[in-house]
């Protein structure tokens, strides 16, 4: 029997980590993530979770402690956002390179200056090359489901890679929605023990993080890259198993009203739900349009993208982080690169918006659609185009 309870996004992430029975949490508070780790501390204090909470002096230390805990065989969880995310950046590479399945919830937030606390994907996108599995939740139920499944995927012996679950700061983290929670026994039946093949063990010492040379580095990184790319099959397999067990299915790219649609609007995270309402309105007006929701960012779902856009003539990509001096937005640039040489016939428009929590209503998404279709028709677009920007 499952329960349907009101939970803000932060608590949905914490509830998933608790039900996954994590052993170690090492974290440092930062808005808009703080509720997640506060809730973890409450679970421990209330006796609802047997785990070690390591209160550290910075995010660099938080991720370092997670590295050690995960290497020692503990199921490990943390959470961060924005500036804190950037402070732990260096360590992110070590955790993935050493194949440690740390799970981290990221309550996405813009990066200063200007100093801010509000949501966009500037932090998430900066980690695109850190070797972590990364997925985006679009609502609080998805935060719970993806966080719970993240432990299974990350710890799978075919994967053994760290996993970030991105959730929109405030838009999800601080908003209460109904979330269906499974019974603990159902979760226990879904989870499997975490066993690392080279667990830290003084009776069987290993060499971790040895010094490389130009003669070894490229081969080591290729092995890691292939490991990350091949994790996609396991992600899909475990998301399917999750669906069979709990009734909610996820895919790297979710399609909404895309059958026979001439134009597709690709959106990531919570705003994809607003975009769907705008698309409903546009369809009522006779526009042939659907929505692709990008769930899996790393490993990038190349095949699923081509399947998703099959039959479409126009693709409008909505992005939520600037790439200063670069190719407009990070998702726009990567999707274009993924299509190049495969679908040169598809017309692509890229539009930025929703940065630093700038509110985007259905009307703005209608604007995005109108402008996107115009760009696809004329083939003319400024390099950087932001919806609703003044000036």
């Amino acid at each position: 029997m499952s329960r349907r309870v009101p939970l803000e996004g932060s608590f949905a992430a914490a509830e998933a980590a608790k039900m996954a029975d994590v052993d170690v949490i090492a974290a440092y508070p930062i808005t808009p993530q703080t509720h997640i780790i506060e809730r973890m501390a409450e679970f421990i204090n209330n006796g609802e979770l047997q785990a070690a909470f390591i209160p550290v002096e910075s995010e660099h230390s938080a991720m370092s402690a997670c590295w050690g805990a995960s290497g020692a065989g503990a199921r490990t969880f943390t959470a961060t956002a924005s500036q804190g995310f950037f402070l732990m950046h260096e360590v992110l590479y070590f955790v993935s390179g050493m194949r440690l399945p740390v799970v981290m919830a990221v309550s996405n937030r813009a990066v200063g200056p200007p100093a801010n606390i509000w949501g966009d994907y500037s932090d998430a996108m900066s980690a695109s090359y850190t070797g972590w599995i990364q997925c985006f939740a679009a609502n609080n139920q998805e935060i719970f489901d993806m966080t719970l499944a993240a432990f299974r995927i990350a710890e799978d012996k075919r994967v053994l890679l760290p996993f970030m679950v991105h959730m929109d700061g405030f838009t999800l983290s601080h908003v209460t929605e109904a979330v269906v929670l499974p019974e603990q026994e159902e979760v226990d039946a879904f989870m499997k023990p975490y066993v690392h093949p080279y667990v830290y063990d003084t009776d069987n010492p290993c060499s971790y993080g040895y010094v490389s040379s130009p003669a070894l580095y490229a081969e080591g990184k290729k092995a890691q890259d292939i490991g990350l790319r091949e994790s996609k099959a396991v992600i899909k397999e475990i998301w399917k198993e999750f669906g069979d067990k709990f009734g909610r299915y996820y895919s790297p790219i979710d399609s909404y009203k895309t059958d026979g649609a001439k134009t597709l609007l690709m959106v990531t995270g919570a705003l994809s739900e607003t975009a769907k309402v705008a698309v409903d309105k546009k369809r009522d007006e006779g526009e042939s349009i659907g929505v692709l929701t990008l769930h899996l960012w790393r490993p990038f779902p190349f095949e699923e993208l081509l399947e998703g856009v099959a039959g479409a003539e126009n693709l409008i990509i909505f992005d939520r982080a600037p790439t200063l001096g670069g190719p407009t937005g990070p998702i726009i640039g990567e999707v274009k690169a993924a299509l190049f040489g495969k679908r040169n016939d598809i017309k692509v428009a890229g539009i930025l918006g929703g940065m630093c929590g700038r509110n985007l209503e259905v009307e703005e998404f209608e604007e995005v659609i109108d402008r996107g279709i115009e760009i696809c028709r004329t083939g003319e677009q400024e390099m950087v185009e932001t919806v609703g920007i003044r000036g």
Partner: protein
Amino acid sequence: MAKNQVKPPLLPKWQEMSFGNILAYAGGAKEYKTGDWRTQRPIVDKTKCIKCGMCWLLCPDAAVTQNEDGTYEANLFYCKGCGICARVCPKDAITMVEEEA
């Protein structure tokens, strides 16, 4: 070797790289020849050596070893030729000599 890991070859293909850059044994640095970084080698004049052990203590690579007679010399498999031993020797018993090409 512990945990059934196959020891990778000296120049592995990417498929042969150890998982997570982990080597399932400790002390792998012992096999790493750093002696070929050297441009100068330390030569010890045993008649001047008073066996104080300063070179042994301060060698940053632990490459200095003690002989049976109590004097010291550098293990040239590891010695990088930094010259600290020659600088700290209180009796100027160690001379840095250019390596020949």
